[in-house]
């Protein structure tokens, strides 16, 4: 049968969320002839709709449904209702993302083995490894058109990169370049090269940056095997008395509750909404929520050790011009406990416009210490820290029954506190970042606290054994054979790299597995 599909069609794979994980899975399944209904809570926006304006774009695309926070992270104080900066739209957060696309280092698949026992950390090895993932990474890089892979040229460096690079070289760093980016450096896949407009975080109006919104989604739809229903907010996943899922209940664009039958359900709502959905689907058979026999649903929330360093110079930089994040130093990504912490971090260029700089430079800050920094906005360069944080069982997403969304569903509470290893790593990275800018004559450097999380990982983690995690090596839940998880929440550990390339590689691999198992009659 071809799309659109009937609500009673119980042969379809239902995918919840259409971002990096769900959007790619939907297309990859459709390409393999599988019938897919993808339900997306947000609306549909394309390059002509994107807005070159930080707050207006945020208002257009960001997920602003209520969430609550706790724990000692500063975000809980400064942005108590906004633990994450992620998108609610067809294509998910791949509209906002900056495009940095790097593979895990081989040892990062085996964090527990490599780092050994770290007190308070719930470290676990992934059940898969570098060799197994290599071909899937290659497919993902080809899909995304990642620069500096597959013979694709790197992007040219902008002003912000040039300052960053000069400082890095002065300190002797070796692995410094304009990044492996899912942003075209020349025509690729029917999309033009980067025009250096500088609004990567607001949706690329040229389509130079890969986003599922205008690549995978329309391609999947073109097969006739994929139906994307936007403004469809999934409330619950239902199951039968054999413990297999039967379909999902969702609120359609008019607020009416619908039930879509399914042969398989794949959850890809990003790391807050995916566990929230499993927990909100609790039943008499699964009182702790679906797929939660391990008790790990919602736990081990990771957000990377982040933070920014801005350098102020006596002359203009104009960091906002050009690609937002095309610049990287990889020398600190290694695991080297002599620095006083396990695991490593990447340093990447980053620029914010004036409105976001005012909001995020020092949230709550005021007075001349704050304003004199902004007075030098034109002379600022910026970088971002992305490091591996330690999974902790107590960092978790739970249901907050005191607060409900407009559908009356309990919202996600996000609890997070840094591990001592996270703090040691961040302090090291701040010092290195400040040294980089000092080396090129910074008159002032600003170690800036983490923003609301853009990388959200780990709340349905992958494990060899059912007792340790929520999904197996295919993203299939240990407890329910026809229930899958397909987004960043399956990360066993976070590695030092921006996560999306890995989410995409895992989604392609999962699609291949699901399609094979379906035709073999096993699913």
């Amino acid at each position, binding site marked *: 049968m071809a799309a659109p599909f009937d609500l009673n069609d119980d042969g379809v794979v239902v995918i919840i969320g259409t971002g990096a994980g769900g959007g790619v899975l939907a297309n990859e399944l459709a390409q393999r002839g599988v019938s897919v209904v993808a339900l997306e809570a947000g609306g549909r926006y394309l390059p002509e709709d994107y807005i070159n304006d930080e707050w207006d774009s945020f208002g257009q695309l960001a997920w602003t449904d209520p969430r609550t926070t706790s724990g000692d992270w500063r975000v809980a104080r400064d942005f108590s209702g906004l633990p994450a900066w992620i998108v609610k739209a067809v294509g998910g957060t791949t509209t906002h993302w900056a495009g940095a696309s790097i593979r895990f280092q081989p040892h990062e698949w085996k964090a527990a083995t490599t780092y050994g026992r770290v007190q308070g950390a719930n470290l676990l090895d992934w059940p898969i490894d570098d060799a197994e993932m290599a071909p899937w990474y290659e497919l993902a890089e080809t899909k995304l058109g990642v620069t500096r892979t597959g013979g694709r040229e790197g992007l040219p460096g902008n*002003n912000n990169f*040039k*300052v960053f690079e000069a400082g890095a070289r002065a300190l002797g760093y070796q692995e410094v370049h304009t990044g492996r980016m899912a942003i075209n450096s020349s025509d690729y896949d029917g999309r033009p090269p980067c*025009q*250096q407009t500088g609004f990567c975080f607001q949706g690329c109006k040229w389509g130079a940056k890969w986003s599922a919104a205008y690549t995978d989604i329309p391609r999947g739809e073109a097969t006739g095997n994929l139906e994307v229903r936007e403004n469809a907010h999934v409330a619950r996943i239902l199951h039968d008395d054999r413990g297999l899922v039967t379909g999902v209940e969702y609120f359609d664009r008019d607020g009416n509750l619908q039930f879509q039958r399914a042969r398989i359900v794949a959850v890809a709502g990003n790391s807050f909404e995916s566990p929230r959905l499993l927990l909100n689907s609790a039943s008499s058979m699964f009182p702790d929520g679906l797929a939660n026999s391990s008790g790990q649903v919602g736990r081990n929330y990771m957000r990377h050790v982040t933070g920014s360093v801005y350098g102020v110079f006596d002359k203009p930089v104009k960091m906002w011009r050009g690609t937002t994040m095309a610049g990287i130093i990889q020398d600190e990504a290694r695991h080297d406990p002599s620095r006083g912490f396990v695991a490593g971090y990447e340093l990447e260029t980053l620029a914010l416009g*004036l*409105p976001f700089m005012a909001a995020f430079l020092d949230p709550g800050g005021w*007075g001349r210490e704050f304003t004199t920094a902004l007075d030098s906005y*034109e002379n600022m360069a910026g970088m971002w820290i992305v490091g591996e944080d330690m999974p902790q069982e107590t960092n978790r997403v739970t249901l907050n029954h005191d607060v409900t969304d407009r559908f009356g569903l309990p919202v996600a509470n996000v609890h997070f506190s840094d591990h001592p290893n996270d703090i040691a790593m961040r302090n090291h990275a701040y010092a290195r970042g400040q040294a980089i800018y000092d080396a090129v004559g910074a008159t002032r450097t600003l170690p800036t606290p983490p923003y609301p999380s853009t990388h959200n990982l780990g709340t349905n983690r992958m494990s060899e054994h059912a007792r340790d995690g929520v999904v197996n090596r295919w993203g299939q839940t240990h407890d329910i054979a026809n229930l899958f998880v397909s987004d960043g929440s399956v990360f066993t550990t976070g590695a030092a790299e921006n996560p999306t390339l890995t989410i995409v590689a895992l989604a392609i691999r999962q699609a291949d597995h699901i399609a094979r198992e379906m035709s073999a009659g096993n699913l």
Partner: protein
Amino acid sequence: MSKPQTSRGLTRRQLLARASAAGAFVLGAGFVAAPDAAWAIETTHLDPETFATLVQMARDIYPHDHVADEYYVIAVRGYDSAEQAEAITAGIQALDAAARGRGFPSYLGTGWERDRVDILRAMEESPFFQQIRGGLVTGLYNQKEVWPLFGYEGESYSQGGYLYRGFDDITWL
């Protein structure tokens, strides 16, 4: 957002003669203007002194010497409303009371920014202060007219981005 109207009909000297010690001052019933007549607005719900004090408070929270008062006025004029007037008036009264407690005639009657900042520091946990500060983050810095004062160029797509307009034009490295 449109700029507030510029006051006419008073000479600069007349205006200066009525200026109070700090920043904005009150011209008459419901009318507030800057000492240099760069801006003036009519208030409808807030007493003019209260509004003038609010503008000064806004500047003291986010002081940018190269940003004229008119932008601070735009940032806070939304508080001149029926719903907000009572709470804002109470907040400004508390500010003036704090100033008197430190021996000044009023908040606007202080001499140095330092004195006003001390007053604000002492009340920075209050909901009133947090409301005004939080509102300014977007109220002030999200004014497109303010961006050029910081060098920020805003939207660039319509001009073809910076590929041919200096994305890598840095010369001093």
